[in-house]
């Protein structure tokens, strides 16, 4: 990567177009937008998990010098639509979870706002609450569908008979914890409200940290009772999202309400890291019973994946945890189900690879256990169960090269050196290898529009898309340049503003396929109308093209993740020494940014395997480890030799661009690859993520592996 050419086009490395602003500190994230006469918001949050606000006394706060306004349910402007309870902010005295907004202080400085908020006294009528996911199925609901529109349950064949007749059987329960997205830039919204003449012509300007400016506008418009064109959302740079910025959350509504009380002065609101553990979504904990039935040769005869997970009592979000199990392996008899506990908890939402990340953690640990019970190499087990067509839809694959991923990775990683569990030692460390499959749907979302304009000798590309750090600024410019037949420097991209044409959300790893194919269509329209030598000011637009073939195929990305783990024999400390991901993700636009996405995804998965765990206090409904001191994510020193490579298979069955999406697939197989490596190293199988030293130590006594002088393990 040190030999980057000064410029390059499609399929070639290109330095980040946004890189210079980011190293200079001049990139304008939401809070960093320069506004005049700013005020600052600090929220009031409920300190009970369920009940009502009986009395709220704001007089001391209002008396404080520098306080501009105090907002509660008693004086908050009325919202036009309160059907979605997440957005019905300060509209009643009800409290549905601890930390919910019950008001806000707006002040001249952040210090005064925070101080004033501490002076508000609140009395509650408290009701009994339940905030912990039960591990039985009592009182659970069957959702109509799960996230992304999948059915809650599926069944094919006779799973009961397959399980009863199995020659080899895995019947285990796997669990994954509550996790929080934690992008580095806190969720931030700066609101400027213009009252207009009071005749329905009010308007709102929002500098927001979001994965989709148009999604924010479309969602907030009916809530605030404004026509969409009266709301402008601006978001040129976003400090990460990982799903939590995919849709607006309650803070957007709170700041829009507060901005109606300041006489037009801007209101700046950045959540604190601690507040982010309550108000902007999280990954539900899951409890997954997985049953795999196989014959003596390791061919699956039955797959059953039953999931228990949680949602909030006021808004349903059902993580699609078992959907990958529906398409991953061949088996004539199969069943999946999702059951929901409705709890007095914050509202779960998207977190990088919702569904696939926890679900494949469970399934791929179970496959590792099945391989051992069949005395098969884990890769060979997966090869034997490779389906010719998608078992779920019955469609042909648009492209599936999973076995090639495994073969390529096994060769590079030295998979042949893998030994029996607990057999390899390096000083005080037990060392082992693990592998897992990865997969993620290849979505192309329709509904974007791109505009090409020829201005001052350059092509201006306008699309209301986002760059949350993925590289869109660069890759979309590259795609436009290639389609136009010019250098990247001949293109100027504009994104992150609702004044630009409609674009779908940056989610579901769909950005490049959706926006890229839209930009290419707009270039085609431009060339059709204006030719190769356009006049100054020439413009053309196009919407996301229909890709007729797509419906014929099951479209997914695939990958094989390899990990080498070292487990300290005495302390149970785990170090991941090496990881390799081999991916089948279609066309790659910019290798350096793609590699960052894939490697970053793998680190996200490693983190899920070993570190991340939001601890819910059953007594209070409070996540007790709600900051970076106690909610652990990897630091530089946690990461060693880690690489991602990809196969050279474009997938033009999936979309015209041939690109299948790379934002999430790195995360999906990585937790199980690490967990399986820990098992191979130590002989201890931990089915409850994250794999922490206390769990390894507690279970090591019951295993037969490890030499007598090896201490605990």
């Amino acid at each position, binding site marked *: 990567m040190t030999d*980057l050419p000064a410029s390059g086009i499609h399929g070639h490395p290109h330095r980040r177009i946004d890189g210079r602003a980011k190293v200079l500190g001049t990139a304008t994230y939401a809070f960093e937008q320069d506004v005049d006469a700013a005020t600052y918001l600090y929220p009031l949050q409920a300190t009970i998990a369920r009940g009502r606000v009986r009395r709220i006394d704001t007089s001391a706060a209002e008396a404080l010098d520098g306080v501009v306004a105090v907002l509660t349910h008693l004086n908050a402007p009325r919202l036009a639509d309160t059907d979605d309870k997440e957005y019905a902010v300060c509209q009643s005295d009800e409290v549905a979870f601890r930390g919910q907004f019950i008001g806000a202080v707006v002040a001249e400085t952040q210090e005064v706002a925070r101080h004033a908020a501490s002076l508000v006294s609140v009395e509650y009528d408290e009701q009994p609450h339940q905030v912990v996911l039960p591990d039985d199925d009592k009182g659970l609901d069957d959702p109509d569908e799960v996230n992304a529109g999948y059915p809650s349950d599926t069944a094919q064949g006779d799973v009961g008979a397959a399980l009863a007749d199995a020659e080899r059987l895995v019947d285990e329960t796997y669990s994954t914890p509550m996790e929080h997205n934690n992008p580095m830039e*806190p969720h931030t919204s700066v609101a400027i409200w213009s009252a207009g003449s009071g005749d329905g012509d009010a308007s709102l300007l929002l500098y927001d940290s979001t994965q989709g400016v148009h999604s924010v506008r479309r969602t907030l418009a009916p809530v605030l009772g404004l026509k969409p064109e009266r709301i402008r959302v601006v978001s040129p740079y976003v*400090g*990460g999202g990982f799903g939590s910025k995919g849709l607006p959350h309650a803070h957007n509504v709170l700041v829009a309400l507060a901005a109606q009380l300041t006489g037009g002065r801007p209101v700046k609101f950045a959540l604190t*890291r601690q507040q982010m553990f309550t108000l902007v979504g999280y990954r539900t904990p899951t409890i997954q019973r997985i049953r795999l039935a196989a014959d003596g040769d390791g061919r699956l005869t039955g797959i059953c994946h039953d999931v228990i997970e949680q949602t909030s009592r006021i808004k349903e979000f059902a993580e699609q945890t078992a959907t990958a199990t529906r398409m991953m392996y061949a088996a004539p008899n199969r069943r999946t189900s999702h059951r929901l506990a409705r709890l007095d908890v914050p509202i779960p939402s998207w977190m990088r690879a919702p569904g696939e990340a926890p679900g494949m953690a469970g399934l791929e640990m179970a496959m590792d256990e099945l391989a051992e019970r069949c005395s098969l190499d884990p890769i060979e087990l997966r090869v034997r169960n490779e389906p010719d067509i998608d078992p779920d839809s019955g469609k042909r694959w648009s492209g599936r090269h999973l076995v090639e991923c495994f073969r390529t990775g096994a060769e590079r990683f030295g998979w042949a050196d893998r030994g029996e569990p607990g057999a390899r030692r390096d000083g005080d460390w037990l060392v082992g290898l693990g592998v897992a499959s990865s997969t993620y749907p290849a979505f192309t979302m329709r509904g974007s529009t791109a505009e090409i304009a020829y201005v001052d000798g350059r092509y201006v590309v306008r699309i209301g898309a986002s760059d949350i750090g993925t590289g869109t600024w660069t890759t979309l410019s590259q795609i436009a340049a290639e389609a136009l037949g010019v250098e990247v420097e001949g293109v100027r991209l504009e994104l992150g503003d609702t004044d630009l044409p409609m674009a779908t959300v940056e989610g579901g790893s769909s950005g490049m396929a959706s926006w890229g194919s839209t930009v290419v269509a707009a270039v085609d329209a431009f060339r059709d109308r204006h030719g190769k030598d356009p006049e100054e000011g020439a413009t053309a637009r196009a919407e996301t093209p229909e890709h007729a073939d797509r419906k014929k195929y099951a479209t997914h990305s695939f990958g094989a993740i390899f990990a080498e783990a070292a487990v300290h024999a005495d302390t149970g400390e785990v170090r991941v020494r090496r990881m390799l991901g081999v991916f089948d993700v279609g066309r790659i636009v910019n290798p350096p940014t793609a590699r960052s996405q894939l490697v970053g995804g793998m680190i996200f998965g490693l983190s899920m395997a070993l570190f991340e765990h939001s601890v819910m206090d059953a007594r209070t409904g409070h996540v007790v480890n709600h900051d*970076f001191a106690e909610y652990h*994510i990897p*630091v530089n*020193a946690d990461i060693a030799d880690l690489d991602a490579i990809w196969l050279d298979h474009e997938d033009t069955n999936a979309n015209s661009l041939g690109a299948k999406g790379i934002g999430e697939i790195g995360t999906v197989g990585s937790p199980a690859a690490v967990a399986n490596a820990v098992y191979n190293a130590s002989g201890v199988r931990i089915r409850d993520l994250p794999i922490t030293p206390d769990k390894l130590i507690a279970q090591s006594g019951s295993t037969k592996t490890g030499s007598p002088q090896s201490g605990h393990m």
Partner: protein
Amino acid sequence: MGLAWGMTRISVSVDGIAYVDEVEPRMLLVHYLRDRLGKTGTVVGCDTSNCGSCTVHLDGRSVKSCAVLAVQADGHEVITIEGIAKDGELHPMQRAFHESHALQCGYCTPGMIMQSIDLLAANPDPTEADVREGLEGNLCRCTGYHNIVKAVLTAAADAKAAR
């Protein structure tokens, strides 16, 4: 002229410019830089001094500016990410981060760069392990850890070649 009640006067140099300001004693240095001086290149990531996004130099040594009060900077020199490029030329560490693709969303980047400069000042010829340990107080979530380490090692090698 007298001070407003509860305010303290500070004299502080920020990115080479001298400021005299009245601040509340409770004001954090990072909020002084951002809300008062408009130096928003230094960002806030965690509020608990864990993430390092707000790292600046105080008299040449790196500090997390969310863990320093503005009044503690009285009489001292602060350099932020916005003060290390000279006449449009990127600082060698900024250039190394840019050229090594050592960033994605860029939010941790100013802090990473300021800490990396401090790291090389203390240890001009670090090993990879030294860099990984030396950046322990700076979190990246995207994550560019590999390329961050590569950038710091590249900057160190460039500096060595220039010596």
